[in-house]
């Protein structure tokens, strides 16, 4: 019996499972992965769900192969995903770079755990934020997004696929162990209420097709396997024909295209949410699971008469520079809680440009940040700027 792809309804579901349902709702029919805590549940559910709907699940020999396989599947015409955690994410960097260079749509879900190295496999961290941005070799722009709940694991995975198809690049979901393993209500809407974006296909015949000639949005239409376009795809620096060209002119044109297609569309890509920000004197800028600690801290601060607000970063990369710059001109301080020893706070400081105080609430990993610590930081920041 062929099962439904979109399981419309209301469920009590963990984040990893919700990620799978989001992927399938977005049209993902290929998953290649390797078991790793705390992302294993994604592979487990995909191994059951994809065969049910006629898709392909394959457990590869490692994460190098998993990442290579989803790139291949994407060029084979399927929407494809893998999931992993820190050590596996490190192994995927090589082929994430190939995916960026060859402009291959796919989704990588990193359910983060505490590192470095094997670290705390079963416990939370947000330590791969900069690895998502700079971990692969060479220069490029990435898109990375960060869910805070199982519902967002569903919604954001659909969004990740749409971004990857629209802008032709691997999109990274920076989830974490708590969001992945937490069970909450997840509402899956009817299939016709879910917006699904598919990659642009060439409208010209093969003789006139240039695989890497971008349209005005900076993105080139994508021919895939067996469509008769006989395209060449290479991780070498290539021209618009897709042919290797070993000089700085071709390099400039290619890297510029990879960078500009994200930078020029940043306003369309970036999403964030604000809470109690209108009259805020101090704002907590948070992402992922730490948003929930931030909201609790701000609610308590408000009860004590502190005018605090929250900015929830849904997009991590590209970073919302303009919004932070504007906000920094309005508040006395920006506080960033993150389960690492200071990664995104560097971006926050850069974008705030000295217009206000910026303070980090760090955590090395293994537990979420307690709201009291953020509350203390709010108090301290206000005293410091009094």
């Amino acid at each position, binding site marked *: *019996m*062929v099962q439904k792809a979109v399981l419309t309804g209301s469920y009590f579901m963990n984040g990893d499972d919700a990620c799978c349902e989001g992927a399938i709702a977005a049209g993902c029919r*290929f998953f*290649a992965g390797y078991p790793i805590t705390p992302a294993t549940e994604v592979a487990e559910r995909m191994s059951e769900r994809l*065969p*049910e709907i*006629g898709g*392909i699940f*394959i457990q*590869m*020999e*490692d994460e*190098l*192969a*998993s990442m*290579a*396989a*989803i*790139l*291949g*599947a*994407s*060029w*084979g*015409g*399927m929407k*494809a995903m893998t999931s992993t955690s820190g050590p596996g994410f490190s192994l995927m960097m*090589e*082929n994430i*770079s*190939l995916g960026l260079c060859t402009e291959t749509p796919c989704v990588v879900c990193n359910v983060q755990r505490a590192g470095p190295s094997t670290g705390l496999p079963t416990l939370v961290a947000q330590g791969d934020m900069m690895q998502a941005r700079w971990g692969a070799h060479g220069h490029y722009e990435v898109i990375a997004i960060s869910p805070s709940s199982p519902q967002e694991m569903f919604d954001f995975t659909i969004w990740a696929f749409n971004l990857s198809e629209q802008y032709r690049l691997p999109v990274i979901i920076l989830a974490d162990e708590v969001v992945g393993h937490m069970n909450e209500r997840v509402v899956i809407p009817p299939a016709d209420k879910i917006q699904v974006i598919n990659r642009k296909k*060439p409208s*010209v*015949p*093969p*003789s*006139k097709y240039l695989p890497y000639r971008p349209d005005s949005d900076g993105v080139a239409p994508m021919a*895939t*396997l*067996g*469509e*008769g*376009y*006989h*395209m*060449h*795809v*290479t*991780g*070498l620096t290539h021209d618009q024909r897709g*042919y*290797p060209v070993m000089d700085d002119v071709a390099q400039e044109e290619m890297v510029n295209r990879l960078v500009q297609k994200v930078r020029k569309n940043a306003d369309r890509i970036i999403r964030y949410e604000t809470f109690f920000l209108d009259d805020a004197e101090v704002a907590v800028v948070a992402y992922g699971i730490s948003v929930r600690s931030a909201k609790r801290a701000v609610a308590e601060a408000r009860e004590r008469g502190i005018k605090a607000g929250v900015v929830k970063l849904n997009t991590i990369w590209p970073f919302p520079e303009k919004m932070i710059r504007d906000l920094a001109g309005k508040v006395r301080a920006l506080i960033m809680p993150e389960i690492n020893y200071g990664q995104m706070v560097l971006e926050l400081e850069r974008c705030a440009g000295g217009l206000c105080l910026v303070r980090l609430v760090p955590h090395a990993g293994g537990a979420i940040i307690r709201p009291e610590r953020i509350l203390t930081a709010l108090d301290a920041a206000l005293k410091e700027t009094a």
Partner: protein
Amino acid sequence: MSTKKRKATLPHPHDSLLRTDRIPHIWCPGCGIGTVFGCVLTAIQKSGFPLDDVAMVSGIGCTGRMAGYLNLDSFHTTHGRAIPFATGLKLARPQSHVIVTSGDGDLFAIGGNHFIHAARRNMDLTIVCVNNFNYGMTGGQVAPSTPFGAKTTTSPFGNFEEPFNFCSLAAACGAVYVARWTALHIRWITDSLSEAMQKRGFSFLEILAPCPTSFGRRNKMRGAVDLLKFFHERSVVRNQIDPKDAVLDFNKHLVVGKFVDIERPTFLDNYQLINRRELGDWPALERQVPRPEKQAGG
């Protein structure tokens, strides 16, 4: 010597399969890769497969450049990852015939783990390994294929490691078709390629190829024909023998031939078998991809 470009008066029979605007190629004079590439092109032409349904995936290295000259869907991937990339490609569109072409270092050093698992799964791929006994692209370093005692830039006093027997490894891992030839055995290579392409499952071809520039000149086979002469004198055909006995001994002989030709269900055969058993009316994997009209106006 005239600097004028000679104009070809007759088209080469392989022209339609070549990205002729990318010629001249990068391979050195005397290299065996071009010979093998020619055999691959002939085998593709002979296969009768619709050309839109043939694709090539290659890794990194001299042989890895083959995909760049083939005027079909062609993918030049990362070092060692041609097989897992091809795995995704094949599974996404099972009606495509996917040929993986790469070198000994790419397939068996950095990509060794992928090779053994794809063979175990009987992934329906045709793997062509051009074995030139060293890493040619980077200037001739020691490889998992370098003979014991041979000199390379990273074994200046002679290789102190033993090489793999790739054919034996492939057979042990479950390959359904295994053959080895030298770059001199052009008809045998082409015939083996034709058989391998028709074969459902993981088929493996090893071609011993001269690399005078990097390997030959450090091992007293400096001339372009020295290595070919060596292959001619030392190779012995032993069809159907156990590939573990198909020894490559530079001091005695190089055993070539077709060693394995068996039937075994492919990954997709078993994927469908299990899913049909458990899930009933399981959908066919082959999806029809709309083809553009090639002559249509732009």
